[in-house]
């Protein structure tokens, strides 16, 4: 009976949602993502991988596809776009994460822990879980570091490496409910990494091109495909990796509260 009345009341909402979904569907079907412009602008007899004269191109995606490793020194196209062509967006995304994590911490500090008395003594973690986590944690962190160090060579990068490290720390928190990294250390790493990102951006403002986040050392160090290459991109990805890792760890730590 109850079910039926609520269903009746939500009928207009369901109808609206369906209409909205149908509109979106039709509109998205109508759009050919990325297709037509690229064919229009390509030179005749274009071979995939061939470098294009940038004078004649106005579509950003086309230039990224053709010239990214030449212009940014990064073997990974996604990294080239994320850190160099659209690095400003990435700075913004990192800030969003930072704001969210800081804000959660700030808001939680206003909630008094009224379940102080409810807090029961927790059992020590099981031996297998504890030792296993200690065995696996360094491997996970190593993998995370690998992912963000090789961000300009292989899939992955700062964000992915950072969250992999954070998920390792999460495992550690589950295995060791009473211990945790110091808030202070997490906060220092987080802020320093953010400052490092902006500092690397300001390097671009200081060097030849005088443009924020410009990658002026793109071809100077190493060949494309080597670990030390792509100019400032790997350094930026290291900063992002540390920042995201410490932020997500801090977020989990704050949400965990005390021993639950």
């Amino acid at each position, binding site marked *: 009976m109850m079910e039926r009345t609520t269903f009746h009341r939500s009928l207009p909402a369901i109808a609206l949602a369906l209409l909205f979904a149908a509109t979106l569907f039709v509109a998205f079907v109508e759009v050919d993502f990325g297709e037509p412009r690229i064919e229009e602008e390509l030179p005749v007899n274009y071979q995939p991988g061939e470098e294009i004269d940038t004078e004649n191109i106005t579509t950003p995606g086309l230039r990224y596809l053709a010239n990214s490793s030449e212009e940014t020194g990064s073997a990974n196209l996604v990294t080239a776009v994320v850190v160099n062509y659209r690095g400003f967006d990435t700075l913004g995304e990192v800030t969003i994460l930072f704001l969210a994590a800081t804000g959660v911490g700030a808001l939680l500090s206003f909630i008094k822990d009224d379940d102080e008395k409810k807090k029961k003594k927790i059992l020590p973690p099981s031996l297998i879980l504890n030792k296993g986590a200690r065995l696996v944690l360094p491997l996970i962190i190593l993998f995370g570091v690998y992912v963000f160090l090789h961000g300009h060579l292989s899939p992955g990068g700062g964000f992915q490496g950072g*969250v*992999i490290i954070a998920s390792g720390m*999460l495992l550690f928190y589950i295995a060791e409910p009473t211990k945790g990294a110091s808030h202070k250390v997490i906060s220092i790493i987080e802020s320093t990494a953010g400052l490092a990102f902006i500092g690397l951006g300001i390097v671009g403002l200081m060097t030849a091109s005088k443009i924020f986040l410009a990658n002026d050392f793109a071809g100077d160090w190493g060949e494309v495909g080597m670990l030390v290459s792509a100019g400032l991109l790997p350094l930026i990805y290291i900063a992002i990796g540390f920042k995201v890792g410490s932020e997500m760890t801090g977020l989990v730590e704050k949400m965990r509260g005390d021993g639950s």
Partner: protein
Amino acid sequence: MNELVFIALATLMFILMIALAVMVIRSKDLIKAAILLSGVSLIASFVFVLLRAPDVAMAEASIGSALTAIILVFAIKKTNRFEEGGEEK
């Protein structure tokens, strides 16, 4: 990859995702809903691999199916586990 296989796999994944999402909405047990939600993310990350976006897939797999779920579970532990009208344990 064979295009037919690709379409079949993708369709299967989308059906699974929708089914899981419906289960998330219908579940009155919030922890169960959080875990099902992480299942949706896991399948989404597989779809990203199918679409040849390994970068996104890595982020989706670790954020969507590990960190988000655990943060939701921590938040649920601080409040009530069951929605109103759900059965109490």
